[in-house]
């Protein structure tokens, strides 16, 4: 049995409204957003504690406190508070920070990515997405594209062992997207993101017994063939509102730090610079994050990595650009 499935099943124990609750600290000065957060947190298994200043946050974190929700309304607030927040986060390593960014400012995103710990960036307007993330943080059950789809949504999975399988897969996805929504721009974005995720799974993810990268040095025009026990699992599906695709490799070689460092570097400047010396490391991830509406990375170091990309079928690209694109990184704890 696939190890990843075992982890997922072990963590997905039956839970109900009476399960032991965790505590979440909330620093949200906007009343409407705070009320929304309270509903989501309670539903996800957290009791909420609101703090009115950042200073006592560090004193309030303990082993029951798992999550901090921090709402950034504008650049002025961020510039005033970000240094203090950095200090607090670095003193509370067990706490998962969810940044709710009202506007998708590049500077704020770059700063968040440079913060200690993993960045969990959300749009406060995307309530469903935030609930899923909170629930994942609470339960530890982090893997799988189905969490982002409604009950009954159909998904399809391909098991890939050869990098040449990428092109027919992308043709299939393009056809699926066009039949689903008839939108060329979305089809192009879905194709590009799928391309990046599959290439990453074949060229960057595989490591040998000494955890050395096996194919990262190769020109991408080479063909990589993986063993039957090293299959890359590519899944996709839709509920008519979002299209979700996920790419899982059985190596678990990428770290959260690598992801935020690579992405952060691209956000530092208005335009990403191509580094030919490093083979453009991180460029694929940057393109994928820019093209998808949301990006999720589920990590189980040494065991598997799963990238999930979501595409919103209901809003135009114009509307999408006004919103913060979620970037969520989750790490299995055992």
């Amino acid at each position, binding site marked *: 049995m696939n190890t990843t499935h075992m982890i997922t099943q072990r963590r997905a124990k039956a839970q109900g409204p009476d399960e032991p609750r965790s505590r979440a600290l909330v620093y949200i000065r906007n009343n409407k957003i705070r009320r929304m957060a309270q509903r989501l947190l309670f539903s996800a298994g957290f009791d909420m504690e609101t703090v009115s200043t950042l200073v006592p946050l560090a004193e309030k974190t303990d082993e029951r406190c798992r999550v901090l929700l921090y709402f950034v309304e504008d650049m002025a607030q961020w510039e005033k508070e970000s240094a203090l927040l950095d200090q607090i986060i670095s003193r509370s390593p067990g706490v998962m920070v969810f940044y709710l960014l009202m506007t998708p400012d590049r500077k704020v995103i770059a700063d968040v990515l440079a913060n200690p710990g993993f960045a969990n960036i959300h749009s406060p307007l995307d309530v469903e997405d935030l609930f899923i993330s909170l629930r994942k943080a609470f339960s530890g059950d982090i893997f799988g594209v189905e969490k982002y789809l409604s009950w009954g949504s159909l998904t399809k999975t391909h098991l890939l062992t050869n990098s040449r399988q990428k092109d027919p897969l992308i043709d299939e996805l393009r056809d699926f997207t066009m039949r689903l929504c008839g939108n060329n721009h979305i089809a192009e974005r879905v194709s590009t993101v799928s391309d990046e995720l599959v290439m990453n799974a074949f060229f960057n993810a595989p490591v040998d017994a000494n955890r050395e990268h096996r194919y990262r040095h190769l020109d991408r025009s080479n063909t990589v063939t993986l063993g039957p026990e090293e299959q890359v699992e590519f899944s996709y599906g839709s509920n008519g509102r979002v299209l979700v695709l996920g790419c899982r490799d059985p190596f678990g070689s990428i770290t959260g730090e690598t992801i935020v460092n690579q992405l952060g570097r691209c956000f530092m400047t208005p335009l990403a610079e191509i580094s*030919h010396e490093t083979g453009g490391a991180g460029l694929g991830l940057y393109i994928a994050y820019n093209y998808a509406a949301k990006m999720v990375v589920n990590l189980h170091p040494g065991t598997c990595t799963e990238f999930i990309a979501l595409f919103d079928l209901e809003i135009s690209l114009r509307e999408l650009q006004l919103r913060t694109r979620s970037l969520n990184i989750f790490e299995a704890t055992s």
Partner: protein
Amino acid sequence: MAPFSWSKDAEGEAITYLLSGRVDESSDFEPLLRELKDEVIFDLAGIERINSSGVLRWGRFIREVSQRVQDLRFVRCSPVIVSQLNMIKDFSGKAAIESFYAPYVCEECGAESTALLDVTKDREQLETRRVPSRRCDECGHDMVLNSLEDSYLGFLDQEPGEA
């Protein structure tokens, strides 16, 4: 989707090269590079997709082209190309962008279309970060650019890079 290919249209003083398909790890620019000299126009309407391996290959190619030719122009840039121009530094090398496709969306009915904009003819509007008005073929309402103006038209502020 078709792999990268190109053809030549030799009308006029400068030679126009029509580039099409997907730019990726399989794209070979060498045969095209050997052809290029003096004044070159790339018609980029047919470029449908570019992945990160393609961006690296394109980056190397365009640096070589910028050194080799005297005059380089991009015409009919597809939205895929515009996206890269707005995302990747020096994606156009020393090229001057003459025209590009802009995606429109009807906020009333959701219909989408594209229109070719000319950097010279439409300069007045583009300089103030606006696009020419357009009516929806399906419902007749006004359409808007299907992207934030500052974001989609941002590449117009870039100076052509030195080779």
